[in-house]
């Protein structure tokens, strides 16, 4: 996983709630067996509308998505995270995230930042007023900063450490292979096998 420490970039406001993962990457894009090329499918249906915010050249090269609440609800498709990252996003800010999307993001190094709804709206308004506004997301300090404001965000220590170091979960878990074997020897005997 790519490490995440601090990121500074431009932001784009997405003034919609309940941005489900079917919108982030429609199902037709899920037929690929590779991990690449998903940027073309990001918000594929919405991008057909010339008025959609990602089509606004003002926000070109933005790397921080500032969305309405309940971002990433619905399907567990990690392709949604891949699509956002491959398009160029490093951070998504929202008042609430779908649990699975949020989890998938932290496995891939896309930082989901939860801020209170009023702070998200303030940031959206300030980005709309000045699209060139530089926003800094500082994971070490657990803080978002921009000219005109700052906000602290919460993230648990373990996930933060993993992101800061860019650590791969499987490698971390395999350090405890002996614990897994011990647990397995005590499993209830009637538990089913698939064979």
């Amino acid at each position, binding site marked *: 996983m790519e490490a995440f420490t601090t990121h500074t970039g431009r932001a784009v406001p997405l*003034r*919609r*709630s*309940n941005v*489900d993962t*079917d*919108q982030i990457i*429609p*199902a*037709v894009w*899920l*037929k*690929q*067996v*590779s*991990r690449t090329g998903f940027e073309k499918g990001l918000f594929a*249906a919405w991008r057909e509308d010339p008025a959609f915010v990602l089509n606004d050249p003002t926000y070109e090269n933005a790397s921080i998505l500032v969305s309405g*609440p*309940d971002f990433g*609800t*619905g*399907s*567990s*498709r*990690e*392709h949604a*995270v891949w699509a956002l990252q491959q398009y160029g996003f490093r951070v998504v800010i929202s008042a*609430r*995230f*779908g*649990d*699975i999307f949020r*989890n*998938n993001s932290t*496995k*891939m190094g896309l930082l989901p930042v939860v801020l209170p709804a009023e702070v998200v709206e303030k940031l959206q308004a300030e980005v709309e007023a000045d699209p060139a506004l530089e926003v800094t997301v500082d994971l070490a300090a657990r803080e978002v900063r921009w000219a005109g404001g700052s906000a602290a965000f919460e993230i*648990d*220590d*373990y996930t933060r450490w993993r992101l800061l170091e860019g650590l791969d*979960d*499987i490698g*971390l*878990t*395999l350090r*405890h*292979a002996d*614990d*897994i074997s011990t*647990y*397995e020897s005590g*499993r*209830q*005997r*009637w*538990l*089913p*096998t*698939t*064979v």
Partner: protein
Amino acid sequence: MGLTLAEKVWERHVVRRADGEPDLLYIDLHLVHEVTSPQAFDGLRLAGRKVRRPELTVATEDHNVPTVLGPIADPVSKAQVETLRKNAAEFGVRLYPMGDAGQGVVHIIGPQFGLTQPGMTVVCGDSHTSTHGAFGAIAFGIGTSEVEHVLATQTLPVYRPKTMAIEVNGELPYGVTAKDLILAIIAQIGTGGGQGHIIEYRGEAVRKLSMEGRMTVCNMSIEAGARAGMIAPDETTFAYLKGRRHAPTGEAWDTAVEYWRTLRTDDDAVFDTVVEIDASTLSPFVTWGTNPGQGAPLNTAIPAPEDTGDPAAARRALEYMGLTAGTPLTEVRVDTVFVGSCTNGRLEDLRVVADLLRGRTVTARTLIVPGSMQVKADAEAEGLHEVFTAAGAEWRAAGCSMCLGMNPDTLSPGERSASTSNRNFEGRQGKGGRTHLVSPQVAAATAVTGRLTAPADL
């Protein structure tokens, strides 16, 4: 202080616990399908890893498969299915491929084979894994990185979610189903209401549900924002499981049932959140918008956006859906009816649809898609397929089908459906398609009249 059902099952599966870290949780059953697994198997290959416990892993082909028997026409879908076959063979995972009598939607076949049992942990790269919680299992959807993690280690590092009780008091009125109940719950608590929680559905109305109904309720926990939903196992659960292919037998059955009986929330246990629902006030429920929380009783009118919790979203949804506030829901005309999916693709669902279609004719395009080939065989043994085809409906083979339109079963732009599936998102059933989520009963009645209709109004 006592423990909740979720806490009891969780504690039994903790492999390792350390301060400041998520618990390392053992996974008893890993369900795999073609869409969210190829990159995970690739990851194993790149790292030179094996599947740790192939015998706790099972795969099926469901999302991409055509429901008209024959080869897969779309070369991209075909390549994905072939990739799963290659991966299953290489890593020694049992696969139920297209054409096999055991093939079906991943969340239908787990319970059908008796693989899903009380007190287990079940994961799958699919958010509707919450279905399996109907047996008193902790079951939740995961992304592809976690699929790879479970394949490699049979565990997952996870923080224990908070617990939420949804107490459904009173009795569901006649003709009101598990689907109406869960749609009403989602409308009440919202699509984010269950975030960070495992929901336990409790109360008289829940106890009276069949296993099929309980699976429908738990299935849509994710639409309420919860990664998992559970129902404590009881005699209904044990009766459903007994004799199934992978259920314990003989002495092991007795030992298992003795343990399963302990899987209930202690009287003095405390939930982080409690929600109460009065079942006796419910009636057939449908969605009018583009998220599952945008629903209303079928006998009401489409709400004015300003009367909803999120007016901007409601305005946008009505525009997308081509609907006007104030229109009675029963005046909404539909083009297509879809009966199927992991929400409502089981035999019991097909029986109620057949009961309503018997001797009647459909006026909308109606697709009836069994959740598995076993459900198909069982339905045909009862002659249900003859009822469907005599009514003018299309009787198909098993798969996810029009629930998400990855196979050829899709809506065209502007086409409107009444669907027994779980998501009414924009474009979910095909680009530009408009979806109303309904129960199987409402789907059948709607198929007959061509507009959203309660069975009582037929």
